[in-house]
């Protein structure tokens, strides 16, 4: 994703020193990154991190205060007409009149884009055949998301922005959305996904950008972000003396969730043996011991905490 790692690849989106201000508030502060066609770039960040403003600037809805954005080589704000023919967008919610019917809407958008996408085939692709005559207001949350995705696909996009694409969707629906995202990537589309769902990001991302307070605090492939972040995880329903355990093992120990603990900086088997010995000696029940790279949510939590401090 970074220009260094994929310099030779086809850049679908290029953001350079982007600044977005709303009055005195700086929502995005000199952000630069690239996203490559044929890869899935996931943008993560807490609320107010600046990811929505960045995406809106990329979609051409917002004029940058400073810096530049290029999507498929076009300025999205000034060359919107040309870009709209090749760009699919999926809003997090809304964007559709409540009384509109599924079949009519998909036909309307296929006609508006005029890229030869067959409405009936598209409806089948997103699994909405059974609700073709249903109005938007009567659809379930998952069906609304799939309809919104269908409207984005009507563009036969070369670049697509998906905002929380699996939010509110059941397990089968999620599998379908992931499949479509993989198909888009394999077809050479530049796929940009904004999500709060870290598990989802882990499943679909080739590249990850983590936003915090208007800046990118980390970027790279999933492996890049997790490399050098070894840890041992375990569960315990007992009270764990973190100081005593830390001193014994020589590594920091912290409680990450209720009954869940992490030993940071190692996945060494010898430390696991020391851990079990300490537990026996201190009469502490432990289980579900695992070792390996940090999960994305831990990476995310650590990076945003570091940035905040």
């Amino acid at each position, binding site marked *: 994703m970074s220009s260094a790692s994929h310099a030779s690849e086809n850049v679908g989106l290029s953001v350079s020193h982007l600044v977005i201000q709303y009055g005195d508030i700086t929502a995005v502060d000199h952000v630069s990154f690239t996203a490559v066609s044929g890869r899935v770039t996931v943008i993560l960040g807490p609320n107010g991190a600046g990811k929505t403003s960045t995406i809106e600037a990329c979609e*051409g809805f917002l004029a940058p205060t400073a810096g530049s954005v290029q999507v498929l080589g076009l300025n999205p704000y000034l060359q919107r007409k040309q870009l709209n*023919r090749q*760009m699919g967008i999926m809003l997090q919610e809304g*964007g559709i009149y409540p009384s509109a019917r599924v079949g009519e809407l998909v036909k309307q958008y296929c006609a*508006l884009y005029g890229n030869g996408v067959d409405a009936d085939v598209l409806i089948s692709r997103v699994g909405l055949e059974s609700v073709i005559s249903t109005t938007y207001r009567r659809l379930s949350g998952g069906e609304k998301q799939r309809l919104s995705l269908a*409207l984005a696909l009507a*563009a036969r996009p070369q670049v697509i922005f998906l905002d929380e694409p699996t939010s509110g969707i059941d397990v089968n629906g999620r599998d379908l959305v992931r499949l479509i995202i993989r198909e888009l990537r394999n077809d050479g589309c530049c796929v940009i996904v904004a999500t709060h769902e870290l598990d989802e990001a882990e499943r679909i991302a080739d590249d990850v950008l983590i936003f915090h307070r208007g800046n990118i605090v980390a970027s790279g492939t999933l492996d890049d972000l997790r490399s050098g972040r070894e840890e041992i995880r375990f569960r315990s329903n007992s009270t764990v003396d973190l100081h005593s355990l830390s001193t014994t093992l020589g590594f920091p120990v912290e409680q990450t969730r209720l009954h869940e603990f992490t030993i940071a900086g190692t996945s060494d088997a010898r430390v696991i043996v020391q851990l079990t010995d300490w537990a026996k000696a201190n009469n502490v029940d432990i289980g579900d011991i695992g070792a390996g790279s940090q999960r994305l949510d831990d990476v995310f939590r650590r990076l945003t905490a570091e940035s905040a401090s």
Partner: protein
Amino acid sequence: MKLLRTQLACELRVLARNGEQLLLILGIPVLLLAFFSNVDVLPTAGQRGVNFLLPGIVALAIMSTAMVSLGIATGFERSYLVLKRLGATPLGVPRLVLAKALSVVAVEIVQVILLVALAYLFGADLDALNLAKLVLAIALGTLAFSGIGLSLAGRLRGEVNLAAQNALYLVLLLIGGIVFPLQEFPSWLHWVGRISPSGALADVMRDVFSGTSIHGASSLVVLLCWAITAQLAAFKLFRWN
């Protein structure tokens, strides 16, 4: 052209499904015309009830469609992010605006034909109707009221916009001399009515249907001023997102 056709069809479909809007743009004008043409309870400035009412009711119909119906629908489309989503298609703003304008004109044509036919059935005298002036009055009225409707829709939240449009509709209906002659009003209100967009359009319509120039150019000038001012306000105030 295909994109414009596609969007126009969508605009008309959405409108046809909206019961409240159909009641507003067809039900209320038809009901008012039918009721007060046949029940003689209103002062009608010495004319037959239907002859007095028809011009005002046509003005009301244009106000309903160009201001309230368009304004409420567009306000909700803005709140529901429909305009934002359409803004990311190849449709483009000019075609979207044109599709909305054509849908308003299409509805107004249906309204005017229906109201004139109904009035004729109730014995209205249409011999002096000036068609060219009618088209001009409809065009200016549409520009004035759509400008007002879009100015509100472009700034207010969906529900607030709904309430504001309906309240303004009621005020303009009452002060515009649409169902009551302005001569019956207190002097100060009489002049407020005369310079209101609904009063000016109703006056122009009365000249159109009677083939006279009782109100002269003054009402036409007032209406023209409203048309220009309201469109400028809409251009300045309207926000797509």
